[in-house]
C-alpha cells in the first residue's frame, strides 16, 4: 500500500515537472507547478519530515506559487493568445539536461552510500527549533535580515514611479 502510494507520488512529481517545462501555455505550467510542489510535500512525509512538508505547502504553494501566478497575470494580457511560452534551443537544452541526468545517475548508482541506522519517527518540530536557536542561530538571524531586505527591495523596485 505505502509502496504503491510512493510510486504514485513519484510519478506525479515527475509528470507534473515535465509539464511545467514543456507546456506551451504559461498558466498550465504554473498550475502544473502546484502539483509538483504538493507531491514533493508528499515525498517529504515519506521521509519523516513533517515540518518541512508543512513548510513546503505553506511557503511554496501558498506564497511563491501565488507570486509566480501574479507574475504571469501581470506580464501577459490574458485575452491574447500570445501567453504561449515559446521555447528555443530545444536541442542544446535537451542534450545538456540529459547529459547532466546521466552523470548524476551514474554517480547515484556507483557510489556505495553509507546507510545509517533507522531514524526515529517522532515529530521533528522540537528538534528543528532547538537547532535553529542553538547551533544555527547566526545563519538564522542572517537569513532573517536577508529575507527582510529582499522583500523591502522588491517592494521598492516594483512600486509605481
Amino acid at each position: 500500500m505505502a509502496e504503491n502510494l510512493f510510486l504514485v507520488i513519484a510519478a506525479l512529481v515527475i509528470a507534473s515537472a515535465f509539464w511545467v517545462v514543456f507546456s506551451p501555455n504559461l498558466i498550465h505550467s504554473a498550475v502544473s507547478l502546484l502539483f509538483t510542489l504538493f507531491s514533493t510535500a508528499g515525498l517529504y512525509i515519506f521521509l519523516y519530515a513533517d515540518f518541512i512538508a508543512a513548510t513546503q505547502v505553506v511557503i511554496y504553494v501558498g506564497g511563491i506559487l501565488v507570486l509566480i501566478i501574479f507574475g504571469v497575470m501581470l506580464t501577459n494580457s490574458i485575452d491574447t493568445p500570445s501567453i504561449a511560452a515559446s521555447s528555443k534551443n530545444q536541442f542544446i537544452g535537451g542534450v545538456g539536461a540529459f547529459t547532466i541526468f546521466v552523470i548524476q545517475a551514474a554517480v547515484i548508482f556507483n557510489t556505495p552510500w553509507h546507510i545509517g541506522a533507522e531514524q526515529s519517527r517522532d515529530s521533528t518540530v522540537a528538534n528543528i527549533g532547538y537547532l535553529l536557536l542553538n547551533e544555527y542561530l547566526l545563519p538564522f538571524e542572517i537569513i532573517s535580515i536577508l529575507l527582510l531586505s529582499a522583500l523591502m527591495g522588491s517592494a521598492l523596485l516594483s512600486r509605481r514611479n
Partner: protein
Amino acid sequence: MDSLQSYLVIAALLFSMGIYGVITRKNAVAILMGIELILNSANINFIAFNRFGGMENLDGHVFSIFVIVLAAAEAAVALAIVINLFKNIGSVDVDDADLLKG
C-alpha cells in the same frame, strides 16, 4: 523502493528538467519556474540524506528551511525585476532584454 537511490533519482530528474526549462524557455517567469524545480530537487536531496544517512540530529531539515527561505526571497526579487522589465520594454522575453548591449 523506499530507498535512498529512488529519492536521489527523483531529485536528479527534477534537476535536469529544471535545467532544461532554464535553458529553453524565453519567458522570464517560466525560467523562474525552472529555478524553483532545481531548488526543490536540492531540498529532496537534503532531506533524503538526512533520513537515510543515519544522522543523529536534523541538520538536513534546517538546511532545507534555509533553501526555502532563499527561494522565497529570490522569487520576490525576481518578480519585481520581471515586472519592471515589462514596464520598461513591454515584454518579458529575455532575448529582448539587451539594453546593455553596445
